[in-house]
């Protein structure tokens, strides 16, 4: 059943991304070519400028679309009228939520990878006048952090992953709490989101206090790998689990469809 839900989730959300991905996909090489031609005199400068702006907007558009789709999809499919269909399917509330998390996570990662790949292509591929930049920046990170380079990257990836999951579930738990506490579900969701944000800021700050008391050398870059990343990963993981459990509970017992 979960795989069917996931399949349906992808089918339902794919159409929102196709257009913006296509636009960005086309604009990347086109803008690149237009910008690297050195033929614009005077007023014609607006042409490359325009294309750069369009290109940047298309990338920003991808980021915005992915967040908006995640929010609207959850609300529309589970809390508004479609909720009468989805919440009466022979599936558990956990399965409904997990299917959405899987799709939301996938789209977010695809969007991030797309944006980064696009930027790398744009900045580093051999230009027509051949400036020959390459991937020096990656080696620079390795140099700055010495042996810690690999650990850094691994922890960074873990933190990014758990961070994405946390953001998705933060959205879901806010919507779930909002529909429970208020007639106007949207206002309720925003209010819940603000309150949760404040609480987690406090919680996160508390997690960093041990560093002050343990007299750690804040100038040593290994502090990132030994303290900051692990603590952040732990804190984010705990919040993610809490968001998930609360969302499941509310969807199971406190569903308030109109």
């Amino acid at each position, binding site marked *: *059943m979960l795989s*069917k839900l996931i399949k*349906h989730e992808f089918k*339902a959300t794919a*159409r929102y991304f196709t257009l913006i991905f296509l636009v960005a996909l086309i604009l990347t090489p086109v803008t690149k070519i237009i910008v690297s031609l050195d033929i614009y005199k005077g007023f014609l400068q607006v042409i490359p400028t325009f294309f750069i702006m369009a290109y940047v907007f298309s990338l920003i558009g991808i980021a915005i679309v992915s967040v908006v789709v995640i929010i609207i999809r959850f609300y529309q*499919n589970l809390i508004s*009228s*479609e*909720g*009468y*269909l989805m*919440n*009466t*399917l*022979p*599936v*558990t509330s956990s399965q409904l939520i997990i299917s959405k998390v899987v799709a939301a996570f996938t789209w977010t990662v695809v969007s991030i990878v797309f944006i980064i790949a696009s930027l790398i292509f744009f900045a580093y591929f051999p230009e027509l006048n051949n400036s020959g930049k390459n991937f020096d920046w990656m080696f620079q990170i390795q140099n700055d952090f010495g042996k810690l380079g690999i650990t850094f990257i691994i922890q960074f990836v873990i933190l990014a992953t758990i961070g994405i999951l946390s953001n998705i579930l933060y959205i879901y738990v806010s919507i779930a709490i909002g529909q429970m506490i208020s007639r106007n579900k949207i206002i309720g969701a925003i209010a819940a989101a603000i309150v949760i944000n404040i609480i987690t800021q406090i919680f996160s700050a508390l997690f960093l206090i041990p560093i002050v008391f343990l007299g750690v050398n804040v100038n040593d870059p290994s502090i990132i790998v030994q303290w900051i990343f692990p603590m952040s990963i732990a804190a984010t993981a705990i919040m993610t689990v809490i968001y998930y459990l609360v969302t499941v509970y509310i969807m*199971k*017992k*406190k*569903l308030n*469809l109109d």
Partner: protein
Amino acid sequence: MNIILECESLTKKYNGFTALSDVNLTFERGKIIGLLGPNGSGKTTLIKLINGLLVPDNGKIRINNMEPGVETKKAVSYLPDKTYLNDWMKTKDIIDFFGDFYLDFDKVKAYEMLKRLNINANDRLKTMSKGTKEKVQLILVMSRNADLYCLDEPIGGVDPASREYILNTIISNYNENASVLLSTHLISDIENVLDDVIFLQNGKVAMTSSVEDIRTNHGKSVDALFREVFKC
């Protein structure tokens, strides 16, 4: 077993307002039951409780002797009184969807009923009128071989000719093992298909009876009795 649904001291409150209070009911298999009552009497609340969309504050509700959950959802086919389908889907997409999630869904039957109503399987729901969407929803719900069908106002927004079609669909899909719970205001239209009726008032069961008993003992139609009992 003969009993498809059982409610025991069922109570549900919303923010201090009591929607259902100490409701005791038993439905047998093979009956068409009318759930009748004025607005706000608790009909939709009861139906939502049957479908697991709400959780009781007190008391119990059991379908096939199980509390509402994944297993009961497999056995109950629910038609809410609103459009619950995603507009971008085509009719055949939604039929595939139902087929995917409900093992008792009969695709052949669904396509037959669509054809009879001249609804094209390739049409997007977005392009359909409200009445047509409601018919599509009814077809989906009745194409399941469920133990209990819960229909909340199935003929409300539909023209008289379609109402007749809908009622015929309901009766012809009714088998001796299944029960149908119909909640409605349009009593005179449906009383000829009902076996039993439940009158709800202010969250309590005002009366339960078979339609036959009402006509024999009270000497009037269900519609007339309703107007008497719920006179404003």
